[in-house]
C-alpha cells in the first residue's frame, strides 16, 4: 500500500470550552516524518487522536489523497492505511505476547505466527512468545505494542509517545525502523519529547507556538 498525501485544513480542537489549537493547516507528503512537539497540554495527543479518528475535530477537515477522512470512501481508505498506537499499549495482561499481537493484527488483517515471532525478535522479545503479558515490565509492554510496526503493512503511522519506557538500545532500533519506513515511502506522525534532530528528513510542528 502506497500512502497518499495528508492535508490538515484549518483544523481546530476544543476541550472543555478551552481552545487547544485552531486553524492548523499542514500538508504531509509520502516519505515524511512529522514530529509534533510542544509543552504538556498543548494538544499534541488531541491532534493525534483527531487524526486517528478517535476524537471529533471541532472545526476543519483532514484530507487523505484529496478526500475527507471523516466520512465516505476517504474514511474507508484512511482506516485501512493508518496505524495508531496510543499512550495505552492495548496489550492484555492475561494474554501471551503472541496472542496479543495476533489479535491486534487481526483487527486489520490476520498475520501468520512466523511473522509474529520475527516481529518479537525485532523488538527483543524472542523467547517471550508464551509469557502472559502481566509478567512483563512496562518497557516490554510497550515493545509488544511496537512490534506491530514490524508486522502490519499500514503506510501511515500515528504514534503517541512511542519511546515511553523504552531503553536506549530500543529507542535507537525504533528510530532506525521509522527512518526506514519513511525511506520506503511511508509516513510517520509522532509525538515525543525525545530529540529527533539527528534523524534525516524530520519535520517539526511546535504546538506551543501555534497561537
Amino acid at each position: 500500500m502506497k500512502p497518499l498525501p495528508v492535508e490538515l485544513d484549518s483544523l481546530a480542537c476544543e476541550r472543555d470550552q478551552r481552545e487547544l489549537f485552531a486553524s492548523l493547516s499542514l500538508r504531509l507528503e509520502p516519505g515524511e516524518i512529522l514530529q509534533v512537539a510542544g509543552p504538556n497540554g498543548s494538544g499534541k495527543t488531541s491532534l493525534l487522536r483527531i487524526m486517528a479518528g478517535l476524537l471529533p475535530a471541532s472545526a476543519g477537515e483532514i484530507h487523505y489523497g484529496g478526500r475527507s477522512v471523516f466520512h465516505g470512501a476517504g474514511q474507508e481508505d484512511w482506516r485501512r492505511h493508518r496505524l495508531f498506537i496510543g499512550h495505552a499499549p492495548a496489550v492484555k495482561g492475561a494474554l501471551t505476547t503472541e496472542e496479543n499481537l495476533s489479535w491486534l493484527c487481526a483487527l486489520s488483517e490476520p498475520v501468520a505466527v512466523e511473522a509474529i515471532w520475527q516481529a518479537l525478535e525485532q523488538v527483543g522479545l524472542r523467547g517471550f512468545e508464551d509469557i502472559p503479558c502481566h509478567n512483563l515490565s512496562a518497557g516490554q509492554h510497550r515493545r509488544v505494542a511496537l512490534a506491530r510496526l514490524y508486522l502490519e503493512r499500514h503506510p501511515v503511522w500515528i504514534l503517541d509517545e512511542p519511546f515511553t519506557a523504552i531503553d536506549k538500545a530500543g529507542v535507537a532500533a525504533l528510530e532506525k525502523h521509522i527512518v526506514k519506513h519513511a525511506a520506503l515511502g511511508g509516513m510517520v506522525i509522532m509525538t515525543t519529547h525525545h530529540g529527533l534532530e539527528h534523524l534525516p528528513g524530520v519535520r517539526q510542528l511546535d504546538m506551543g507556538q501555534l497561537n
Partner: protein
Amino acid sequence: MRRVVWLLFCREWRLAWRRPGDLLNPLVFFALVVSLFPLAVGPEPSMLRSMAPGVIWVAALLATLLSLDGLFRSDYDDGSLEQWVLSPHPLALMVLVKVLHHWLLSGLAMVLLAPLFGLMLALPLSSLPVLVLTLLLGTPVLSLLGAVGAALTVGLKSGGVLLALLILPLYIPVLILGTGAMDAALQGMPVTGYALWLGCLAMLALSLAPIAIAAGLRIGVSE
C-alpha cells in the same frame, strides 16, 4: 470478516478462562440470592411456589447487571477499545460477539441452573420448561440492554449505580413478561403470548442494541 469474529471469540474465551473469578461471580450471586429466600421466608411450599418466578427472575436480572459493569472496562483501560474503534471491521459486529460470548458464560449458565433452583423453590416439574424457555429468551435481552449501559458508563471510574439507574427501567418489560409467563404456566394457562413477546424483545435487542453499544463506546473512547 468471519475470521475476525472467530478470532475475537477465541480471545474472549481465553480471557474468560484465565480469570475464572469474573466468570463465577454472577453465578454464585444468582445461587446465593435464590437459596437465601427459602431460609428467610420459611419452607412453606405453596408460598415458595408463588414467589419462585419473581425470585428467580429478579436474581437473574441483578446477577446480569452485576456482571455487566466491568464488561468493557478493562478493554477501555488498557487501550484495546481504541483499537477496536479504529479497526476497519464494523464495531457493532464485534461488540455483538463480545456480548453474546459474555451471555454464553453467564446468562446461559443461569438458564441451565434455573430448573434446579425451580425445584428447590417447589415449582412443579411441568412449569420448568416454561422457566427455561422464558429465561432463554429473556437473559440475552438483559445482557444486550445492560451492555448499552455499560458502554455509556465505560469512561466513568465507578459507573455501577449509574448503570443500574439507566438500565433497570429498560429491564422492567422483560421482568414482567418473564414472571407473567411463569404465573400463567403455574395456573395452567397458555404462555405462547408471553413467549412471543419475549422473542420479539430478543430479536429487537439483537438487531438494535449492538448499534447503540457501538455508539456508546465511540463516545467513551473520545473522552
